[in-house]
């Protein structure tokens, strides 16, 4: 008589084969509850095929975790979350920062007399032209959760979000995005600007 766990595995394999998905590995039982529940919810026919008995077994072992389990078993998931910024959180922070810079630099452009000053934002790329002084390009680099900047003064730099500083920091130089732009723009255009 097959053991309950192997029955579940066989059922899951049938489900995935029916949908021509990659079959689950034996380690699914050890994977985090969130990822395994996502896997099951992404199978649209799962509810029909796995109705009743099968689904209840799957749910019991793969989707739910007894609440009394201590945090050690959740360890890897927690570490991952704190090391890598969540994507939606990253988008929110990066978009806010870039929008903010766009508005402030636009205003700044109205006050300084720079020939060929132009700032535009399209396709998530912020381009700031300062005529003969050079061009800045700021863009989001989502896979790395970074903001990339190309400056005519300091060249390329890549900023990561620092939770403790609540700012975008270039790890190599510990530079702060707003501060770098403030000092460089003042140096190039002659007038100070507040970006933080």
């Amino acid at each position, binding site marked *: 008589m097959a053991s309950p766990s192997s029955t579940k595995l066989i059922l899951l394999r049938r489900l995935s084969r029916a949908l021509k998905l990659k079959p689950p590995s034996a380690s699914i039982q050890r994977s985090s509850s969130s990822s395994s529940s996502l896997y099951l919810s992404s199978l649209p026919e799962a509810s029909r095929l796995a109705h009743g008995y099968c689904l209840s077994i799957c749910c019991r072992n793969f989707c739910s975790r007894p609440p009394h389990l201590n945090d050690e078993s959740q360890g890897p998931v927690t570490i991952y979350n704190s090391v890598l910024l969540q994507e939606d959180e990253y988008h929110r922070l990066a978009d806010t920062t870039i929008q903010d810079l766009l508005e402030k630099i636009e205003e700044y452009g109205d006050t300084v007399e720079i020939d060929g000053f132009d700032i535009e934002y399209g396709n998530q790329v912020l381009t700031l032209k300062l005529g003969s002084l*050079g061009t800045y390009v700021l*863009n989001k680099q989502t896979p790395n959760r970074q903001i990339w900047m*190309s400056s005519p003064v300091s060249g*390329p730099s890549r900023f990561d979000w620092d939770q403790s500083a609540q700012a975008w920091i270039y790890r190599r130089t510990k530079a702060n995005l707003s501060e770098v732009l403030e000092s460089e723009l003042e140096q190039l255009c002659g007038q100070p600007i507040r970006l933080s």
Partner: protein
Amino acid sequence: MLGQSTRRLLGMGFLGQSRSQAIQVLPRFYHERVVDHYNNPRNVGSFDKNDPTVGTGLVGAPACGDVMKLQIKVDDKTGKIVDACFKTFGCGSAIASSSVATEWVKGKQMEEVLTIKNTEIAKHLSLPPVKLHCSMLAEDAIKAAVKNYEAKRAEAAPLEKAADA
């Protein structure tokens, strides 16, 4: 004549000279050096990464759009880089940057190549602002290759001492 004006246009950010209105109307082109490296890349290839005289630098990520593998072959006794090769997945500027990097490291001492700056590569290729990141990646690849070679030497050293004893 067109080549001259495009070279001036692309060098805009770096040379800082005043420009006339007419030039700003022209579209951007890849600098002829970038096109040359793209069409005739120098030193494409691979060394055996297990060879103790080879240092491998692998930088970038496919998701970001650029991956560079730069390998150096070092003469143990003199610390001089005798050969270099690269393989790059990415845009024309990334290919040209890593190709230039392999050209520049050949025949130099390891300490010397660590001073190669991304700004020099970018200036040589007249890279536009948005492609400066490619030159930085090339600089990182050089540094990673040197670091890898030194790490391999450090690992091998105690074993050599044991063999001699």
